[in-house]
């Protein structure tokens, strides 16, 4: 696993805390999250809707709108530079160049009134000193790189003339335009047809290998995780509850929440009766339980779980769990 090797760290998030100002007061959407991604490594971030995955990922390039949000603690080191200390000019030259994003809905992430070739060209010109014909040549190269057939014709089309899968390939081409070190893909396949999802995933995987990028992949889909990621971090209610190499986590989850997530995916050959869902729902941000945030839904919770929140413990090299009773999870 890439974890213990001497590879350079690309991203190091430490104790990140992000608050939102709402009508009911400040809500802590991200609460003490620490993550790191090494060179050419893929980290998957999984968890239920609203647990703070997107806010964590967008914070890297300070893309969460401020206000209503505010970073109240922690640090984010991207290639050794703290992005939380950057001014807006430095952030602009960071975005796209060092870290680039691919979003969930390619249809609405493309500008409807410009040809896709022009949009990719704009992304190239933002950070690179290419002009005129060189830009057009680079657009073609990128379109080929992301596997778009007949790129000369495609680059002159408008987004609505492309299928969802092709639109997502264009988004990926734009993200790659300035050769970022880190690619953040926030549920890149959720909005696509099932058959297309696999194609886009294998494209991302292939590009990552070829370009040597690090990748932060956000997903609901643990099947995707198994296919693409090196390591997995599981989030719950703004916290990391488990972090592990992907095979180890899928084979033997150590947090009851991860166990629940794994049990809720259908498995081939097993009857539907094996399928279960996690009872209850994510606590409302305003009414966080004082102890372990998962305790109200946890089948192995004990009295002390409701009193104090457990710490994220390293139980073996490369493996962390926020549950003192991880041995009883099976």
């Amino acid at each position, binding site marked *: 696993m890439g974890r213990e090797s001497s590879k350079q760290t690309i991203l190091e998030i430490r104790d990140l805390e992000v608050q939102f100002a709402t009508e009911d007061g400040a809500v802590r959407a991200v609460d003490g999250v620490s993550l790191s991604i090494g060179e050419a490594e893929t980290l998957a971030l999984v968890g239920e809707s609203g647990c703070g995955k997107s806010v964590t990922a967008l914070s890297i390039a300070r893309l969460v709108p401020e206000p209503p949000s505010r970073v109240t603690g922690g640090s984010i080191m991207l290639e050794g530079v703290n992005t939380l200390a950057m001014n807006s000019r430095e952030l602009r030259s960071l975005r796209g160049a060092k870290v680039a*994003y691919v979003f969930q809905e390619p249809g609405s992430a493309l500008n409807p009134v410009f040809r896709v070739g022009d949009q990719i060209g704009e992304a190239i010109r933002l950070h690179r000193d290419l002009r005129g014909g060189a830009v057009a040549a680079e657009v073609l190269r990128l379109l080929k790189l992301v596997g778009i057939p007949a790129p000369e014709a495609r680059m002159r*089309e408008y987004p*609505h*003339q492309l299928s969802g899968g092709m639109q997502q390939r264009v988004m990926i081409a734009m993200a790659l335009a300035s050769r970022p070190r880190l690619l953040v893909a926030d549920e890149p396949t959720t909005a696509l047809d099932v058959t297309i999802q696999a194609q886009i995933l294998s494209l991302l995987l292939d590009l990552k290998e070829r370009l040597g990028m690090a990748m932060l992949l956000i997903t609901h889909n643990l099947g995707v995780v198994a296919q693409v990621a090196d390591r997995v971090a599981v989030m719950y209610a703004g916290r990391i509850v488990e972090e592990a190499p992907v095979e180890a986590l899928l084979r033997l989850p150590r947090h009851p929440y991860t166990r629940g997530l794994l049990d809720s995916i259908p498995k081939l050959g097993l009857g539907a009766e094996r399928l279960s869902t996690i009872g209850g729902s994510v606590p409302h941000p305003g009414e966080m339980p004082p102890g372990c945030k998962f305790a109200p839904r946890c089948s192995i919770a004990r009295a002390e779980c409701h009193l104090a929140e457990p710490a994220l413990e390293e139980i073996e090299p490369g493996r962390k769990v926020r549950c003192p009773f991880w041995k009883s999870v099976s």
Partner: protein
Amino acid sequence: MAGKSGRQQWHGGVRTLAGDVWARLKRDRTALACLVVIVVYCLMASWGEWVYWSARVQDVVPIYQVQDFGHRYEPPSGAHWLGTDALGRDVFHRTIQGARIAFRVGIITSLLALPIAMVLGGAAGYFGGRLDECVVWLYSTVASIPSLLLILVIASVVGHGLIGVYLGIGLTTWVGLCRLLRAEFLKHRQLQYVEAARSLGAGHARIIIRHILPNLFHLVIINFSLRFGNAVGTEVILSFLGVGAEGEPSWGIMISDARLRLWQGVWWELAASIGATFFIVLAFNVFGDALRDAMDPRLRMVEGS
């Protein structure tokens, strides 16, 4: 996929948004008729400009100011297609000059009002906060004063003549577009394509000008067509009231001059100036509405895809 490329070939290559709007507009006969009217007026105005400037350069009395007391109040004839007025001046040439003034008013006031609306509306909607409050306060204030009154005040401050008309109309008619653009920017700044642009490193100015504004430019074009007609109408009224053009053959001045002689059977000057005003105002308004129809469904389709 196959269906899409098939559709594309059928239309003979990739179509632009403008091409699509034109295809829709072509099917609307009324709109086409209005467009023809507008083009004819445009030619009239250009010709008027040419007559005006060539007379100035050669330092001679322009043809529309040549007085001929021997031929006053002559009805339309081969020599004077629309007759002559109280000073024996040619009404046809004066009507052409009216088109020149009307187009100057339409263009110059648009050059004032549209940038004001785009800058204030765009900045207020995009940035929000205190700036937005100030802009909303400003346009609410301007909108709450009857615009004719405001125009009269501005015109009387800068003195009579067309400068007052340009400033008066230009500085009071940006409110509608500004309000519309503010609301649209408010909506668009939250859309994914803006977030995507920001994530690639685009700054605020670039996002406003290069990303959002092109999505809203159809609103500016529609507004231009509608406000052009209204500005022309307002200028005619102001000149009629005596606070507009002076010593120049605006349609408003012609109406004002001619109305006293109508009972004597001198109908041609009044008919020419009222008719000229009526058709251009009507054409711009109808064409503006047709543009709106032609552009809206198109954009809905694009956004919905």
